């Protein structure tokens, strides 16, 4: 899933997001705390660490997909009822490679000289050919 969307939903810059593909009890409201508890316990039962920070969100407009966020540095899923859909580790920003050229430091005097030279060269260089004629 789109990382920026998942970041917006879970408000986190790190962690993993799994889709729950296990069985949802018929009587259970998908948006209820009982549903969140059901999914959370399903995940943690496989992992064995009940101190993890997790959140369960259902997307009604996406065929009621149920997603579980886990605050973790690594993918710790051990259950086949959860499928990894995204991780919120920030993308590595690759700086564009640019060729650097050492340019000599010019002082004000040099600049003035260059300006004069450019001004001179901008004028019609009529003297040299004239002299040759």
């Amino acid at each position: 899933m789109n990382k920026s969307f998942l970041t917006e939903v879970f408000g986190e810059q790190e962690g993993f997001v799994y889709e729950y593909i296990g069985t949802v009890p018929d009587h259970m409201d998908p948006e209820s705390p009982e549903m969140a508890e059901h999914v959370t316990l399903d995940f943690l039962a496989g992992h064995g660490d009940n101190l993890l920070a997790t959140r369960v969100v259902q997307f009604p407009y996406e065929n009621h997909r149920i997603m579980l966020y886990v605050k973790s540095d690594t993918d710790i899923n051990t259950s086949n009822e959860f499928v990894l859909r995204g991780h919120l580790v920030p993308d590595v920003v690759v700086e564009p490679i640019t060729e650097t050229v050492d340019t000599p430091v010019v002082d004000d005097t040099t600049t003035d000289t260059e300006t004069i030279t450019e001004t001179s060269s901008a004028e019609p260089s009529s003297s040299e050919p004239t002299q040759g004629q």
Partner: protein
Amino acid sequence: MLVRYRTTGNQTLANFQTDLNAIITGAVSASTDLTSPARTYSTIYGTYPTGIYQKVNATTYTYSKAHNVIAGYTHYFRFGFTATTLNTIDLAQSYTSGTDTLVNTYQKTGLGINPTVNYDPNYPIGIDIIVSNKGIFLQAVTSNQMIGIFDIGHSGVTRAYTSSMLMVLQDMQNVINYGANTGVVIPYTYSFDTLSYVTNTSTSHVNITPLKKFTATSQLAVFENPVYLTNTPSGSTINLIYGLYKLPVATFSGIQIYQDSNSLYRLSINDYAILIN
């Protein structure tokens, strides 16, 4: 209740854990109820809010908190420790007692609150702990932390989408004029941007800062305006933050305690006041 927790040189993390638990569960009404390193210099203001907090697990530092006015909204928080510090705080929508599992949890990490601060009369700081019916707040200036959990009121959105939490994590260093004013996190609330429940970290305070005015006897009148929070995913609806007030700028210098006209205590911090009673 405010406990200005001040300790002597033989303080340990285990003592702090014991005292913190005793403060939250109402076992402390005088400094003599604290462990020995905290008895001499700690001071206590106000009274404990009965019937709000409960420890829900014998091993972990996990607690339930009932909302101060809105029935049916009990949320849960948990403190996590390293070998030397209080390092994490979790705020969760619900809790499963059988497995000691927080459900729909936002965890703030990296607190690094070191409880072994030796009291110095010339530099009398330590850890301030507020436990009221409206929230719990910890301030450890030597560890650069001012973090709390506050009740919030309903908006039209939270009334309709009732799984939305009515408590928030509040970083008091990230408020109006002291940070980017993005210090509120609602772990689980409904968003009209995603049409789902989300963790809202883009929430800010909405408030009118009171002006400084003086009485006929030239005393400063300390006005307290209520503080609301808002965020665009909820359609910019607003929720009241209980027990938190905005003060005129620079009413108090640093961190101080004062009483209102009903003799109820407040702790002032960064031009805000936190209700103690």
